[in-house]
């Protein structure tokens, strides 16, 4: 157990070090990176298996008990996220071997990829608020560098917005940690959960202070998660780096924000769900509609995909926001529906973690062959690349929530939960957003795949095609594998839902999480006791 729970951060860290030592040998780095990712999948799978069979697992780093040392906790949600991230990381690594040019490879692309995974996995697993901040910063810093790697003008412009807005969020996060420590005197999340219960029972007059803290964390995570109206950095930057980088960003960055929000707003800030979760629900609704309208207004492959994420974040937050109904209803149906809503969020997060990146990966192939991502200048891919077209379709239709693909289940569960909780308005928005999502996916399809190849397209240039087709299999295979995952997700919707429900149950009833953490009894004496003895 010691090894397993720590492996998702230890493995990328050690491999990143090795790749730094191999700085002058990008080709060796490639294979190291790939081997590392595959091993990470193994670790993630092992961790998931152990958590699934034996329940929540934890580890006290450096051997000091909670709340004093740093705790790592793996419950179902976090281990699922680690596993999914590792699978996606593997796919993107293979894809990068062709998609990332040598000049980028030789400036540390692969170690950065691993360090990004390190930050992401750490954020999933840590049970300490300040440590979460540190992992956020690792992830952010790695994403800053991956975003700017290559130095194109667009990358610089996008990065300025990305960096600035995320640093604001970090500053708020840090301030929130400071105030949190000042108010509660602890940093351990399980301990905080206990404290909140204790405050609610003993000092209810202090509960509004917790709501203030909740708002600070909401903003801090909201920026990372690209929640409405804090999402501006995302459409400004996601389409600027190479598609492989866009893909890994789309898969992981916002998810960490959503994950943290889900964690904090189920484990810690549950004292006033009527206020906090209502705000989340309202912002989720706005996010859905604004994001999808934003996507409808775009005319470039990756810009459409990027803007879309904002609306899908809305769906993910919807499941968290639905907890609001626990403030008004306390019957069994409501509890079950809330659990289902949270399961919907989990399924949506995992579904989106595969589907959106896969669309970015397809866009990379399209851009490589068609020479551009602008829809007007593309065409003919249905005819020339039928397999790619099918894989795009699987991903795009899944994103639009067409059954029986993964996206449908995520949407269905959220809608079902929303209807049972009588939140009709958000359900209406969710369904409408689905239709508009379908529209913008079809827009890409019609323009890039169905229309004839434009006359000025570089596709007619044999030299260009020879170059573009070189090594393209390493780009296609990962896409195909993810497409298969998306299909299987629909076929095995039943078991997947069962697991998600169990994960949601673990989150809604934090006792398992808290029990797993190894607390240490301590009453301060500062040696005075000893002096008294002697």
């Amino acid at each position: 157990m010691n090894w397993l729970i720590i492996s998702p951060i230890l493995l990328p860290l050690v491999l990143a070090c090795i790749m730094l030592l191999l700085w002058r040998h990008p080709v060796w780095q490639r294979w190291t990176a790939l081997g590392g990712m595959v091993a990470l999948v193994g670790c993630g799978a092992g961790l998931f298996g152990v958590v699934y069979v034996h329940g929540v697992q934890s580890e006290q780093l450096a051997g000091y008990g909670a709340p004093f040392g740093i705790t790592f906790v793996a419950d179902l949600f976090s281990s699922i996220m680690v596993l999914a991230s590792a699978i996606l990381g593997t796919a993107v690594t293979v894809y990068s071997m062709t998609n990332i040019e040598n000049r980028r490879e030789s400036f540390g692309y692969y170690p950065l990829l691993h360090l990004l995974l390190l930050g992401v996995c750490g954020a999933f697993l840590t049970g300490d608020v300040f440590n979460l901040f540190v992992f956020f910063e690792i992830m952010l810093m790695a994403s800053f560098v991956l975003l700017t790697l290559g130095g194109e003008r667009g990358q610089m412009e996008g990065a300025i917005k990305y960096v600035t807005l995320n640093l604001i969020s970090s500053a708020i996060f840090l301030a929130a940690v400071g105030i949190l420590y000042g108010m509660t005197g602890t940093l351990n999340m399980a301990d905080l959960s206990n404290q909140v219960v204790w405050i609610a029972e003993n000092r209810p007059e202090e509960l509004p202070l917790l709501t203030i803290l909740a708002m600070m964390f909401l903003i801090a995570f909201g920026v990372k998660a690209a929640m409405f109206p804090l999402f501006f950095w995302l459409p400004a930057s996601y389409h600027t780096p190479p598609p492989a980088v866009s893909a890994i960003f789309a898969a992981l960055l916002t998810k960490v924000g959503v994950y943290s929000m889900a964690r904090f707003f189920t484990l810690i800030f549950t004292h006033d769900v009527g206020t906090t979760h209502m705000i989340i629900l309202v912002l989720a609704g706005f996010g859905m509609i604004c994001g999808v309208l934003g996507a409808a207004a775009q005319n470039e492959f990756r810009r459409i995909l990027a803007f879309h994420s904002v609306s899908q974040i809305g769906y993910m937050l919807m499941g968290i926001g639905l907890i609001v109904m626990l403030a008004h209803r306390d019957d069994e149906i409501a509890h079950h529906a809330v659990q289902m809503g949270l399961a919907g969020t989990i399924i949506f997060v995992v579904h989106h973690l595969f589907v959106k990146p896969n669309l970015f990966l397809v866009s990379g192939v399209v851009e490589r062959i068609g020479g551009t991502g602008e829809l007007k200048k593309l065409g003919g891919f249905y005819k020339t690349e039928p397999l790619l077209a099918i894989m795009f379709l699987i991903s795009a239709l899944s994103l639009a929530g067409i059954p029986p693909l993964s996206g449908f289940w995520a949407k269905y569960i959220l809608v079902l939960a929303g209807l049972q909780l009588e939140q009709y308005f958000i359900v209406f928005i969710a369904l409408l957003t689905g239709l508009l999502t379908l529209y913008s996916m079809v827009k890409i399809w019609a323009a890039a795949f169905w229309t004839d190849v434009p006359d000025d397209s570089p596709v007619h240039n044999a030299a260009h095609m020879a170059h573009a087709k070189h090594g393209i299999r390493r780009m296609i295979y990962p896409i195909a594998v993810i497409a298969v995952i998306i299909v299987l997700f629909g076929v095995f919707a039943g078991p997947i839902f069962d697991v998600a429900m169990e994960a949601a149950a673990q989150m809604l009833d934090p006792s398992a999480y808290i029990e797993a953490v190894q607390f240490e009894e301590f009453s301060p004496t500062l040696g005075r006791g000893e002096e008294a003895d002697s």
Partner: protein
Amino acid sequence: MSSLILRTAIRYLFPIIVLFSIFLLLRGHDEPGGGFIGGLLGATAFALFAIGYSVETSRRMLRFELHQLMGFGLLMATLSGVVGLILGEPFLSSAWIEIPIPGRPEPFKLATYLFFDIGVYLVVLSITLMIVYALAEE
């Protein structure tokens, strides 16, 4: 620009600063100091060389490639944590061997956190120099 006096001064200052930085590193556990502060100071010594002579000279003084030094430092810090894992303790648990020093009542403790701090020192030294060199060459 770089006068003879400056160069001479640097030649004498260099070992003193480096030694002092290592001193700060080693005493960090008990007094203010530590790997980070030591590493920054160590980097200053090499940076002075870059100013007084050239980036190339400074690089040669260092003998190691910065990436490797950085990777090595990080690896060292990480592996000092793995020792705990190998001993069946959680990651980053400290472990030490006691080496008796003749003539002193307390034995010297060769502990993992020392390696951890050395790792921090190396990383800070190398990343500071990396940034300074890159900017100086710009």
